[in-house]
């Protein structure tokens, strides 16, 4: 195939303990480490492996957001993507807007595969891939743990509630990836230097001519309810007694 498009979302790093800010308008992001959404990193790794075994010619990474997203796109280029597209906006975007923006880029680039993370670890929505597939009127294979390409189809094993489901989709298609698909490579210093010379195009979200999506308003961010501090027991008889006391045995 000619092209694979991979979405990279800039999110608060996996290891950061996220806290709600004092006025409940969001979470603390000042001085917080930002990274590529881990699922998107797996998506990119898969695209690169497809290219490296000769099944694709070009891997394009795309991000939607402020100019800060260039950092994540540069990391994607350093991992091995050929070029990057930033759909620039300083406004927060919802899933449908992101899907509509991705569709515009898909229509311009005509990739045979779009690979995204199954969810972003900030909003935990798990929506954008399915929405893009719907708008594009193409198949979706979500939560992929194995992807096999043959000719014009992809056979995908999906992680589902009861086990593993295998489906076959015609290309072009949207795939969203789960944790166990692969282990993303580490970026090496020379690759970071090389990535600086790779093309990173920018297009303003406002120039894509999208219809505004009916927004869901974020009213209030709150910390979760805390569980009350429990008791420590010394041994198994103590544990059994404590469970009996709660009527759990």
């Amino acid at each position, binding site marked *: 195939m000619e092209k694979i498009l991979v979405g990279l979302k800039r999110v608060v790093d996996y290891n950061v303990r996220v806290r709600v800010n004092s006025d409940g308008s969001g979470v603390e992001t000042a001085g917080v480490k930002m990274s590529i959404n881990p699922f998107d990193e797996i998506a990119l790794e898969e695209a690169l492996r497809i290219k490296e075994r000769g099944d694709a010619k070009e891997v394009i990474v795309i991000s939607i957001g402020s100019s800060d997203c260039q950092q994540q796109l540069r990391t994607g280029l350093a991992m091995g993507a050929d070029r990057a597209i930033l759909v620039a906006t300083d406004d927060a975007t919802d899933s449908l807007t992101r899907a509509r923006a991705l569709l515009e880029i898909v229509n311009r680039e005509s990739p045979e595969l779009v690979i995204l993370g199954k969810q972003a*670890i900030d909003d935990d929505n798990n929506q954008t891939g399915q*929405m893009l597939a719907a708008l594009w009127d193409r*198949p979706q294979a979500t939560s992929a743990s194995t992807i096999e390409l043959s000719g014009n189809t992809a056979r995908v094993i999906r992680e589902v509630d009861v086990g593993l489901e*295998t*489906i076959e989709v015609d290309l072009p298609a949207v795939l969203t990836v789960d944790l166990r698909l692969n282990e993303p490579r580490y970026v090496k210093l020379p690759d970071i230097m090389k990535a600086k010379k790779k093309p990173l195009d920018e297009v303003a979200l406002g120039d894509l001519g999208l219809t505004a999506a009916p927004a869901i308003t974020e009213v209030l961010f709150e910390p979760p309810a805390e569980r009350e501090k429990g008791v420590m027991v010394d041994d*198994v008889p103590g544990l059994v007694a404590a469970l009996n006391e709660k009527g759990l045995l």
Partner: protein
Amino acid sequence: MSKILIIADHDGVALNGAIAKAVACAASIDGAQIEIAVFAESTAAIAAEAAALDSVTRVIAIENIANKHLIAAVVAPQVVAISDGYSHIFGLSSSFGKDLMPRVAALLGVNQISDIMTVESPHVFKRPIYAGNAVLTVEAPTDQVVIATVRTASYRAAGANNSAPIEVVDIAADLPSHTRFVELQAGSSDRPDLQSASSVVSGGRALASTENFDLIYALADKLGAAVGATRAAVDAGYIANEFQIGQTGKIIAPDLYIAIGISGAIQHLTGIKDAGTIVAINKDAEAPIFEVADIGLVGDLFSIVPELTDALA
């Protein structure tokens, strides 16, 4: 008035029990009229189970050979075809619901609310974000249909003492053939289902091998409990993916959760925060699991777990 359609989740034979929890969520919207749509090859048995759920006023049965295996791209246009007149359309936060509902939302040109944990009003909901590190209140536009998935761990199942009418409906939607079911590898187990079990015994990386998970199974069987695991244990290959609990696995709310050799990463804790009682057994007294545990025991799981299993009648 709210008129709510719930999309049934099923395995072709029986209704997913969690649908009763989605009904409970819908019923928490004042004056809601609740209907359930069953898409299947053969709907009779599944629709009958749906019709028995309290508060349900009608079940719509859509029989089609194309609905033999629930494929999001095939079901979504059928949902859109019957969507007229509903103020809300709900699915479960299950594999199928998560696959289907955003596709429906996009076809209807609206955004989706994922993982409703509380209904504040017909258009205001609470949902967890950042692996449960924050709870976000969201408000959906009132002039459009609300598409949402329900975090079923937040709800108690509706009763089943009803007999709502079942209507078989034919849909003339153009269904795609670009997505084809091949096979399902489902683990077979005599143990209770992880998502609906009242007790769960769960193991982490510290179990250190597939064989050592036998300790977990033995304790679970003694308690009549389901078995669960952390992402680390699944990644290490000790146990299959369908047992994973947490941000990207299953979200559960058993009465009793016993965490064995689990350190308590935030991504795991978000999957168990609605458990009634959390028991933690871990050799590291500083492990974060003890911050959320109701009962904690510090020590070597390899001696504690067999002793506990033996101690139970």
